[in-house]
């Protein structure tokens, strides 16, 4: 149970962050004018599509290897903006998916974008493709499309792993403008080294607010900023409290969740109040005291119930 694992404060902090985000969404809906700073990677989207239009070559979009989750949805929402601009100019698009669920949603989304622009006749069903759900088969398939169709612009946004370099370098070899962003922090340095524009960290999540300026999204973005300020304050407070507390000594140590007297020794980080707030240790003896009645119909062979 998470109250045992992370303590009540973990849940409270999560709820506080949720309040910040929802509160700012409702604030923005009331018409508050909120400011978003310039993000170079997102400004480059129109430039990249314009270049592809001039060259008469397709725009490639890849939402990464992830399943249908918040990351893939965010990537698809950015791609919807790309597809809308491309549809207006009649620029061909290629959206390659590694997950069947993402593929299905992507196909619906892109078709709706073309329809909402009144350009349903320009929509090519084959522009959204399922390639493979195996990492390197997907990498090979996408690289093949880049090389065969000589894409002029490439957008790699989503969950990427080792295949990120294959995509970025292949696109670079055909001279495509690349805009990339990954939620995997291990891949971000690769993208920075190989791509023209990179969305770092939460810039990826700021993209839809930046592109659409929809009050709900802008409010959510401001809520994220408030949350970051709250986390920074927590870090500062924790650093101060730990610094002061660790000047002293302790005579108790937790073993198997129970405080036991020990010889006096200098405090360690694990002994500080702040650490215990976020990582309290369970007392197995207390847990064992919970008594429950047995189900009279219970058959040990049936395998009912679970356990923690």
């Amino acid at each position: 149970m998470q109250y045992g694992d992370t303590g009540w404060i973990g849940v409270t902090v999560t709820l506080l962050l949720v309040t910040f985000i929802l509160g700012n969404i409702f604030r923005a809906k009331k018409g508050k004018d909120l400011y978003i700073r310039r993000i170079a990677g997102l400004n480059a989207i129109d430039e990249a599509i314009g270049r592809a239009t001039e060259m008469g070559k397709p725009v490639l979009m890849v939402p990464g290897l992830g399943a249908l989750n918040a990351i893939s949805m965010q990537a698809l929402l950015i791609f919807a903006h790309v597809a809308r601009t491309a549809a207006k100019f009649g620029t061909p698009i290629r959206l390659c998916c590694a997950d069947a669920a993402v593929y299905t949603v992507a196909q619906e989304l892109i078709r709706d974008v073309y329809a909402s622009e009144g350009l349903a006749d320009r929509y090519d069903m084959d522009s959204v493709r399922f390639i493979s759900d195996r990492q390197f088969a997907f990498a090979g398939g996408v690289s093949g499309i880049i090389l065969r169709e000589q894409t002029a612009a490439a957008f790699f946004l989503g969950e990427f792993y080792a295949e990120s370099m294959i995509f970025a370098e292949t696109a670079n070899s055909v001279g495509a403008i690349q805009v990339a962003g990954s939620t995997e922090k291990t891949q971000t340095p690769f993208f920075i080294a190989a791509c023209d524009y990179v969305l770092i960290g939460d810039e990826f999540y700021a993209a839809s607010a930046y592109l659409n300026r929809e009050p709900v999204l802008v409010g959510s973005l401001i809520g994220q900023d408030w949350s970051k300020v709250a986390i920074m304050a927590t870090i500062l407070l924790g650093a101060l409290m730990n610094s002061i507390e660790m000047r002293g000594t302790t005579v108790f140590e937790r073993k198997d969740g129970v405080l036991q007297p020990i010889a006096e020794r200098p405090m360690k980080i694990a002994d500080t109040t702040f650490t215990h707030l976020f990582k309290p240790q369970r007392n197995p003896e207390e847990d064992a005291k919970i008594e429950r009645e047995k189900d009279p119909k219970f058959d040990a062979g049936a395998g009912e119930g679970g356990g923690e």
Partner: protein
Amino acid sequence: MNGFFAQVIPPSPFNAPNGSAELWTRLVIALLLGVAAVVALMKAPVSVRKPVVAVSTFCAGLYWVVFFLWPRPVNRLPGDMPSGLVDGVGFWLEDANPIVGNLSNVLSAFLLGLGIYSLLRIHGMRVIKGHKDAFFSAVLLLGILAMGVFGYWDWLDKMSPTGPSLALEANWAFQNRVRDFLFDGLLQEMDAGMFSLIAFYILSAAYRAFRIRSIEATLLLATAFIVMLSFMGLVTGLLDGVIDGIKGTADPGFLDNFKLTEIAKWLRATVETPSLRGIDFGIGIGALAMGLRLWLSLEKTAVSS
């Protein structure tokens, strides 16, 4: 209700003996109902579809939110009865977990079918129309067919309770050998081939990124150079040895801070780790905000703007 979700006591309407005609009948009925529901949803007007999708998303998300927030039963043993309301809801949530997981697996299976349909349509049309790359499309279609047929055939052999042990290669039949050739002999090897390409791509990307064009690129080059050198035993032995030679090896002193290994350690702990933590916090909060918008159906901008 608890037993209904746990699918054990009492027997639920979704259960039937393994391999029985009853089970197959129920599977077929469930499949037909599933397909009918998907088709009905696709044919429904947007004004009907939107609230259905929003309510389904909210209910599915609500389960996980409550599952996260509700205290889970501690020290639960098989056959235990809940000790109160809080414990009872905890039991119910815990027992429902695999069922909810299975529902998402069923949806994924439906969607995988659509993915395969996409591949068959694109590459089938290329073969039929004699596209210039039709040969590759034909190989792909043949590969899908062969892998499906031999993979399933091999799986049936492995699942057979009466067949010979396939752990011994001598017991392998034709289908086992073909599956082994297709999967381990071709697919795995090609995967490894693609993976090994990354080493060359890293080299070419690093060459471009580390050229001294700006202050940032120079800093990046210098930092990378120090960290890379710190992983080379011979280099660190020589350079750290120079510091030891100046100050002696007795006690740690101020000069130890200038050892290559210490500088690299400082860079990783003081420069790299905080940056990555900052990125982590941003990504985590972003995912939370996105999840909230999706759960509450506030994310409607993709098509509407």
